[in-house]
């Protein structure tokens, strides 16, 4: 555990009323991780199949990590108490902990929990596993999405956004999720240029499933388009201010989840590499004594600490603010590639073994790459952050 983790858990929540029992919840998560999740993924070269994934998710719902429906929210599940500083810290710490065992499991839980937050926010009661699509056809629509959030979008930006969120024609949007999702909330600009959301049951969509994706092997990629004349099962009727605030919050929490999951993955990679370096002998001694290996492992520690501190700082900020989102985007633009490089360094410690699937490092690296390129790559994040900062006092 880093110093930042300790601070994260010991510091009192600010302005949140009674503090949440973070440590107790995290103890449960830790137990789940070591007793249920870890045995299921112990063979790195074997993909965690959909049935096992569902069973594990059900277990995590039973102890309250993933809220099964809006009226059962305890405030202690993932992305439930998002208005509270300690609620956000709880969610990121839990995701990090799960990702220390398996990033794919952590990520799908994050996605469903985020959708749960969305449905609670728009007052939609559902027990189905829905997703919320936060990314359009490509990137972050350059500056257009950011300008929509800061109420500075011009006509060109709106044209861009309409195309960005267009799911009426191929290729539609790309989702990377667990196989058993029931429906997806797709965003769309209404006639007044307000971003609304429509719930599209899976059977009303054309869904192309891609089982061979770069990383997060537990999940699949889906290319999704609307089916002919089919209609959404439900539509939001948000005013523009609420629409902006909701999308800002969703993007912010999503970025926090990405960093927390990436950080957990790096924790895992570093632990594996450090353990290996302490026992592997070469050139007459254990390789942990070699400067080349020390430099590789040290980089992982640096990035762990940087990401942990940055995440903590972001958690302390209001999630519905464009400033927070800009801060998170800049942070992701810097740290997401570093999480990849540091994981790659951990792989390098293993030499040839690191390239083999049974050591697990190559999977973590592919998972890190996946988190780097979804929901905005570093350059797209920089453009979006710049647009958010331009228009934020």
């Amino acid at each position, binding site marked *: 555990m880093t110093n930042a983790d300790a601070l994260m858990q010991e510091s009192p929540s600010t302005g949140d009323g009674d503090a949440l029992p973070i440590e107790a919840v995290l103890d449960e998560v830790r137990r789940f991780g070591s007793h249920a999740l870890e045995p299921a993924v112990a063979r790195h070269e074997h993909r965690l199949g959909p049935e096992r994934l569902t069973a594990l998710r059900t277990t995590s719902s039973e102890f309250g990590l993933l809220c099964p429906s809006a009226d059962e929210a305890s405030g202690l599940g993932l992305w439930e108490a998002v208005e509270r500083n300690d609620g956000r810290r709880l969610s990121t710490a839990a995701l990090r902990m799960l990702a220390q065992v398996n990033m794919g499991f952590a990520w799908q839980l994050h996605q469903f929990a985020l959708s749960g937050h969305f449905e609670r926010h728009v007052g939609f009661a559902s027990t189905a596993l829905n997703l919320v699509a936060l990314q359009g056809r490509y990137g972050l629509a350059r500056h257009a999405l950011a300008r929509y959030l800061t109420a500075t979008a011009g006509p060109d930006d709106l044209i861009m956004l309409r195309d960005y969120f267009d799911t009426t024609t191929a290729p539609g949007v790309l989702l990377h999720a667990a196989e058993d999702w029931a429906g997806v909330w797709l965003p769309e600009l209404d006639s007044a240029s307000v971003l609304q959301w429509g719930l599209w049951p899976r059977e009303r969509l054309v869904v192309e499933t891609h089982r061979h994706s770069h990383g997060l092997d537990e999940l699949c990629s889906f290319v999704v388009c609307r089916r002919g004349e089919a209609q959404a099962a439900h539509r939001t009727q948000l005013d523009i201010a609420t629409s902006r605030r909701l999308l800002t919050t969703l993007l912010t929490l999503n970025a926090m989840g990405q960093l927390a999951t990436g950080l957990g993955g790096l924790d895992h990679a570093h632990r594996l590499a450090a353990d290996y370096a302490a026992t592997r*002998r*070469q050139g007459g001694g254990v390789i942990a004594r070699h400067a080349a290996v020390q430099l590789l492992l040290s980089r992982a520690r640096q990035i762990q600490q940087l990401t942990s501190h940055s995440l903590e700082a972001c958690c302390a900020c209001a999630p519905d603010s464009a400033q927070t989102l800009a801060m998170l985007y800049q942070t992701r633009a810097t740290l997401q590639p570093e999480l990849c490089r540091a994981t790659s360094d951990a792989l390098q410690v293993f*030499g*040839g073994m690191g390239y*083999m699937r049974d050591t697990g490092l190559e999977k973590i690296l592919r998972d890190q790459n996946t988190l780097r390129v979804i929901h905005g*790559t570093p350059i797209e994040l920089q*453009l979006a952050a710049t647009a958010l900062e331009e228009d934020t006092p």
Partner: protein
Amino acid sequence: MTGLRDSALPHLDGHLASSDPLSPFAAFHTLGAVPRRLVSYDAVDQWEVETRRLPPSLQKLRRNARQFAEQALRPLALETDLAPHAEPGHLSPQLQQLISRTGRAGLLSDMLPAPLGSGATSRFRHPIVLQQCLRVEELSRVCGGLMLLLSANVLGAMPILLSGDTSAIRRFLLPVFRAQQRGEAKLFAFAITEPGAGSDAEDGHGARHYRPGVVARRDTGGWRLSGRKVFISGGDVADTLTVFAALEGEGMESWTCFVVRRGMPGFRPVRNELKMGMRASTASELEFDNVFVPDDHIVGGLRQGWALNRATLNLSRMPVGALAVGFAQGATDIAFDFATRTRLGGKALIQFQEVQLQLAQMLAETSTARALIWQSANAWTPRQATSSICKFQATDTAVRVADMAMDLLGNHALLHANGAEKVFRDARLTQIFEGTNQINRLAVIEDFQDALLARASDPATV
């Protein structure tokens, strides 16, 4: 395409059409004949520009290699990458056909000129390593795994060639070359790495402390090999393997190169590794259980193995750099293709400035690495430092450019069919094999050791 200027001429956003009077390219045409030769503009891509700089025989080699890669490797690349890992010793019919086709095209046996090998005589005015670099880049640009399946053959044959032993060349190299040209799916493999050895086999300092894993025990008329080799590219499907083993009771300085044939009693491929990438080529664990190898299957003499190994690595690390350049080029090509066919907000991505900046950077990184390889490989006696610099510099570049391609494709990079993620997985191996990039950096210092020590002991430098 549309642009900033209201012009009917085709141009990208932010740029003038090349025929616009204010474009430098149009302006060049107004210059006289002599200055025009100094500033000429031709609407060809970077690959063509660089190919034209080569001597004619090497231009032909490069063009043929690209054509072969596109025709023979491209149709198999994605499918082979997804295929389940093969059982040891098993080659799919598709891969057998590919090896046959490659052999018939003369691309497995062209490290010697005809009639000994299949190389065009005119090419041999230029170093063999440069020829290998040009070819391997084109193959890896299309598929790393298939490239490795075909190119590990050169590595396996290299110790025999480098031994200068005409008898060994005549007995082991030439018959296989002839069989390859007839279309028989026969390959060489190079076996140095042992369980728990890793870079010890590639670094003198590590080797000093290493206890050899494959040992040769004297027997009447030959030697008996026992032990295991791991991570041997194509080791399970090769017909002829150059296997390095220490003599019983001696250390790594006794390493000797033995020719082991597939089918020799006691030799058995045990398993193939499950790898991140390069999946068309196997990384095999090989068992040697008291394998009898006759005396005349020793290459270069007893205790010459370490020298042959290091010499082979000196020659092979530049082609590893070259294959990494192929990955960088492959990633760049994928990114260009995606940027020209993907539209957002009514425009192709290539119209956006940030996309143009990324693509230019990818081109620059790739060309820089290629320039290093071409310059370094244009020598008949490459030294260790140069080879190692090529290896780690180009392989680090390849992974960086593959990262950039994935970034440019964004979440679409995750889809296998788009190819970018495969390039990353394939390229990542190049930072590890043929000595990790850390070992290769240290090899540079080792090569300059005497000069550095002399400098350190010179009072004038204190």
